[in-house]
């Protein structure tokens, strides 16, 4: 009798463990922070990519206008994939694109934009990556959709056609 109870408990224990781990297999192992809370745009004072003039966040983001802040670098391969979607988004007059050039060198970045087109209205450069930490960014590519000085949506990783549709739906 006693051995039967032990056997059943053991089997149950392993069964439950198996189910838990099996379910866990399907979970994404990419961590994304809770994005339901809307965050204020962090203020920054960065150098412009083209001419080293200072760009201040308070003057950049106007209210009643959508912005997509896109973190990119010429050395980042997925950035090349998402670039055509950014070019597509550029045609939309309701949104302005802000490039956030991440740890890049000027020459490579310029030729990247020459080859693939420049979708950005403004480009700021973040040479050491400190400003991107202030934004809570992970790296490249990453995009923040901004409205009324708030981050309303963030896209970690390259933008795809689904994301593009979503952005167009939000700004419509």
């Amino acid at each position: 009798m006693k051995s039967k109870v032990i056997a059943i408990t053991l089997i149950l224990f392993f069964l439950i463990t198996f189910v838990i781990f099996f379910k866990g297999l399907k979970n994404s192992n990419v961590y994304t922070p809770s994005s339901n809370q809307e965050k204020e745009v962090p203020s920054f004072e960065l150098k412009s990519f083209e001419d080293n003039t200072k760009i201040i966040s308070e003057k950049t983001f106007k209210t009643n206008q959508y912005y997509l802040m896109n973190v990119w670098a010429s050395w980042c391969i997925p950035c090349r994939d998402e670039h055509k979607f950014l070019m597509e988004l550029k045609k939309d007059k309701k949104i302005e694109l802000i490039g956030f050039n991440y740890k890049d060198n000027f020459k490579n970045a310029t030729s990247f934009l020459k080859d693939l087109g420049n979708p950005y209205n403004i480009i700021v450069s973040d040479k050491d990556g400190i400003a991107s930490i202030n934004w809570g960014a992970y790296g490249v590519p990453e995009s923040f959709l901004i409205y009324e000085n708030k981050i309303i949506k963030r896209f970690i990783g390259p933008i795809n056609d689904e994301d593009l549709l979503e952005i167009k739906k939000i700004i419509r």
Partner: protein
Amino acid sequence: MRFVHIFLIVSIILNFNFIKADEIKTENKIAKNLRCLICQGQSVYDSDSEFAISLKLVIKNKIQEGMSEEQIYSFLKIKYGEWILYDPVFNKNTYFLWLLPILIFLAGGAIIIRRFYNKNNLD
């Protein structure tokens, strides 16, 4: 006079080194307590990813600005969420995690005590 000058300069440099060494120590301690979010199973201290390199730079700057360890942790918690800290905070999502070892310890103790008393009773 000259000797005094040299002595002063040397002592200042030595003092400066001590301060610097302390800073590096706290820097490393903080980096070891942070999870590198884009790497798998590595701390920020161990990682050489772009993200970790920038984060180490941020920690260094914050220390130089005079922020305490706790302030830096809470700053990063606001930016990246609790997941960046290796030490999980005690709340309703983690109470099981924190209490399970204590429960197992108590259960083990109970089994040992029972065995002990049973044996004594048999004797």
